[in-house]
């Protein structure tokens, strides 16, 4: 069996910068931030009182047989469902029951329904266990994002939920890519969803000293910056329709880009901190998978979220990957714009990379003014950077030592 090539034909997002991928990209380019004061709950008892929240008015529920259930789902499920609807509509693919046997469904979810877990515990203690809704468990289990999408479209197909922390979404896209490439199915819905803006999340991350204490939403977080002081919690979902290239071309689909390579690699040496060697190894493996070299990569959308140690590890890994002689790739991050969306962060980086490939321009890392001296020769992007973008890399990493990297190329590729 010949190896299939895999292209991206549909994009759907629910983000702190809106639900339109085009406007999201414009905001990234123009340095607009989706971060603001917490409104979901009273944050006065926390040092961090900022978040990148999705506006409630996007949470519309369409009429249908599962409208009642959708309204009871935790936000990550609803975001995933809306992003799926956007991606399917954008691609024009017939995601109906009769095409389900050709499809795959891969959704990355890091923390599932923490908000409903927390509110459920509070209700249980306040009013007793018998007052808990029978929808509590179905609303919060991580697979329900993929399951509600399958129910919504009547898809009978392999359905996977990937829980690989902040690498989940990239892993989901990578696994879908491998599934199509190997001939397992013709198309897939893949991406990530996360929505954990709830007090217990802030308690947990403040215990880890991971959140920025800054109260200035226009200057925090500061990915890669030498004065970075922590991340900001974001939320949302970004999903894609991936297709066998021949099938997509045959139906005249609008093709955004081609997925060229994927790797995931872990060797957990610390529960919360990455190893630069393993992170670099993951990116190298993705390059090998793609048949490209590091010198072919024009830009890198990095994991960088503003964490003092985490961003430093990534800079070490990138320096190791590229070697001292290759300072050409433009390196950037979207976390200054939309905070850390955890499982959705890799997919949101992919939406940005599609914009970069289309416009030959790399979006800036918001709030980056200068990095540590030892990395000052790296091409960290502070302003919108016009340049030829043929191939890009997305780097994702999560707790437990999980890494995932994607290689994406323009379509049609210049010179092909």
């Amino acid at each position, binding site marked *: 069996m010949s190896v299939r090539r895999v292209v991206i034909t549909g994009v759907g997002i629910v983000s702190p910068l809106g639900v339109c991928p085009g406007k999201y990209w414009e905001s990234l380019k123009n340095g607009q931030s989706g971060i603001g004061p917490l409104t979901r709950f009273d944050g006065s008892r926390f040092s961090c009182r900022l978040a990148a929240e999705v506006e409630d008015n996007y949470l519309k529920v369409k009429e249908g*047989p599962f409208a*009642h259930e959708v309204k009871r789902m935790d936000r990550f499920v609803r975001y995933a469902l809306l992003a799926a609807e956007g991606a399917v509509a954008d691609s024009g693919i017939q995601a109906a029951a009769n095409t389900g046997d050709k499809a795959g469904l891969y959704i990355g979810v890091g923390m599932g329904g923490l908000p409903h877990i927390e509110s459920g515990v509070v209700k249980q203690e306040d009013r007793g266990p*018998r*007052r808990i*809704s*029978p*929808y509590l468990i*179905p609303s919060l289990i991580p697979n329900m994002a993929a399951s509600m999408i399958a129910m919504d479209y009547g898809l009978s197909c392999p359905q996977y939920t990937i829980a690989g922390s902040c690498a989940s979404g990239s892993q989901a896209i990578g696994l879908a890519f491998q599934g199509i490439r190997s001939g397992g199915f013709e198309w897939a819905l893949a991406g990530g969803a996360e929505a954990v803006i709830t007090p217990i999340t802030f308690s947990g991350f403040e215990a880890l000293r991971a959140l920025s204490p800054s109260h200035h939403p226009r200057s925090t977080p500061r990915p890669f910056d030498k004065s970075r002081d922590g991340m900001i919690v974001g939320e949302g979902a970004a999903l894609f329709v991936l297709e066998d290239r021949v099938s997509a071309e045959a139906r005249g689909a609008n093709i955004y880009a081609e997925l060229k390579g994927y790797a995931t690699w872990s060797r957990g040496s610390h529960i919360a901190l990455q190893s630069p060697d393993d992170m670099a190894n993951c990116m190298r493996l993705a390059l090998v998978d793609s048949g490209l070299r590091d010198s072919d990569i024009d830009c890198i959308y990095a994991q960088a979220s503003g964490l003092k140690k985490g961003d430093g590890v990534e800079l070490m890994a990138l320096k190791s990957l590229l070697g001292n002689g290759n300072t050409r790739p433009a390196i950037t991050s979207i976390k200054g714009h939309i905070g850390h969306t955890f499982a959705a962060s890799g997919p949101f980086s992919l939406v940005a990379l599609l914009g970069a490939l289309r416009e030959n321009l790399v979006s800036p890392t918001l709030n980056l003014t200068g990095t540590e001296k030892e990395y000052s020769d790296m091409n960290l992007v502070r302003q919108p950077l016009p340049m030829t973008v043929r191939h890009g890399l997305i780097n994702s990493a999560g707790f437990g030592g999980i890494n995932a990297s994607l290689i994406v190329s323009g379509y049609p590729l210049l010179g092909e």
Partner: protein
Amino acid sequence: METSALFEKVVHYVGDYLETDVSHLTLDSRMISSLPGMDSLKLFEMTLYLEDRFSVEFDESVIEKFETVRDLVEYLNSLLPESSGIN
């Protein structure tokens, strides 16, 4: 007459819960098959909703035994105090 007044309230609250028009209900309507999309999960959650509306507490063992709206209304009637204004 008292049952009729309670029935009207129950229909109103069931419609609120399901966010749909259920004015077709009669006392003899079947609890599951007469309500659009009704299933056991919705029935359990709906009883929590009715408990809040009527300030009562259902016996867990009776919920799945409601076959008709009349069963529900009569059970509710048995829970409500005389002073509720409905009995």
